[in-house]
């Protein structure tokens, strides 16, 4: 660690909280004494804040307006169709902004990746084999622009049995379903 600066990948993994306590402490110690690496760390923070802001905003606006418009329309289906139409119109209007934001985010991420992979003075201690992982680091990491799918971390079916599976919604997009094999008596009222 004291022979040079922190490798990009190491810094990224520290940033993502993926290092063991020991390694994290070493990185932290280096950051405390090295302005150059601190700057790189800060730029990761800015990048993450920026991407979180834009991507989640975009997802929130686009998907939820659509989804809840649909649910609402389902609940109110006895009413006239005017409501559905107006929800669609509203959706069309709100779509433009998130798309713009997402485009800016994508452009920023792409440019940053290009800058990061451009030839530069060696900051990594690794050899040529390191280059490839550096290049993919932003794409694969927690701060990546790609929205990760929902995932079930743990489930306890208690007195029941059950299954967890995923429904594919689109290329690379899926959502989990937790299916309870309900053997209990139907329950009406508390």
């Amino acid at each position, binding site marked *: 660690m004291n022979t040079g600066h922190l490798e990009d990948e190491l810094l990224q993994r520290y940033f*993502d*909280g993926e290092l063991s306590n020991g390694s994290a402490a070493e990185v932290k110690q280096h950051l405390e004494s090295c302005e150059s690496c601190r700057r790189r760390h800060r*730029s990761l923070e*800015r990048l*993450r804040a*920026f991407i*979180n*802001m*834009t991507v*989640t*905003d975009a*997802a*929130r606006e*686009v998907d*939820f307006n659509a*989804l*809840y*418009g*649909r*649910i609402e329309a*389902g*609940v109110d*289906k006895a009413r006239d169709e005017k409501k559905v139409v107006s929800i669609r119109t509203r959706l069309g209007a709100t779509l433009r902004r998130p798309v*713009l*934001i997402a485009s*800016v*985010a994508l452009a*920023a991420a792409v*440019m940053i990746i290009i*800058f990061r992979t451009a030839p*530069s003075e060696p900051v990594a201690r690794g050899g040529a084999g390191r280059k490839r992982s550096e290049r993919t680091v932003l794409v694969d990491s*927690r701060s*990546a622009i790609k*929205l*990760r*799918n929902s*995932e*079930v*971390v*743990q489930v*306890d079916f*208690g*007195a*029941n049995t*059950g299954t967890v599976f995923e429904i*594919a*919604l*689109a290329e690379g*997009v899926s*959502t*989990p*379903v*937790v299916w*309870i094999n*309900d053997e*209990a008596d*139907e*329950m*009406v009222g*508390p």
Partner: protein
Amino acid sequence: MKRRQQIISAFIFTAAFLSATFSRPEARASESVAAEVFVILASDRDGTIAPALARISALRQPPFNGFRSMQVLQKSEIELKKGEPVTVTLPNGRRLMLKLKQQMPDGRSKVQLSINRPDQKDYLPLLEVIAKQGEPFFVAGQKYQGGTLVIGVGIGKRVSNG
């Protein structure tokens, strides 16, 4: 190297500025998140599928597309504050508890969910999901009125009451 960093910084700041200009302040509050729980009664009996539901893509896929009727029984909009459980009473009297555990750096939310009879905890004691904003996940299978309850849980709807 210096110049490269300046360019990167300038770009990040420009982009962040644009983003801040376009985004709403409440969207950045990270310790609470809006959520919605919607309860659908799905059944094999002849009937209609609420047209609105037919457009939720997950419900068009197996196993959900096997049902011949689907109606929305209930829809609850809630706000989840980190560590504070919120309870929704389901049509069958069971209680669905939802709790925000953590906001992930990638924008997803780690939530805990349980479904139990009042004062009991043996039905679905624990489900932990890292939920992507805007894409509901489903808890299905409870028998109810000759059909099956399909519960959709969406995380991250913006609080809109200002």
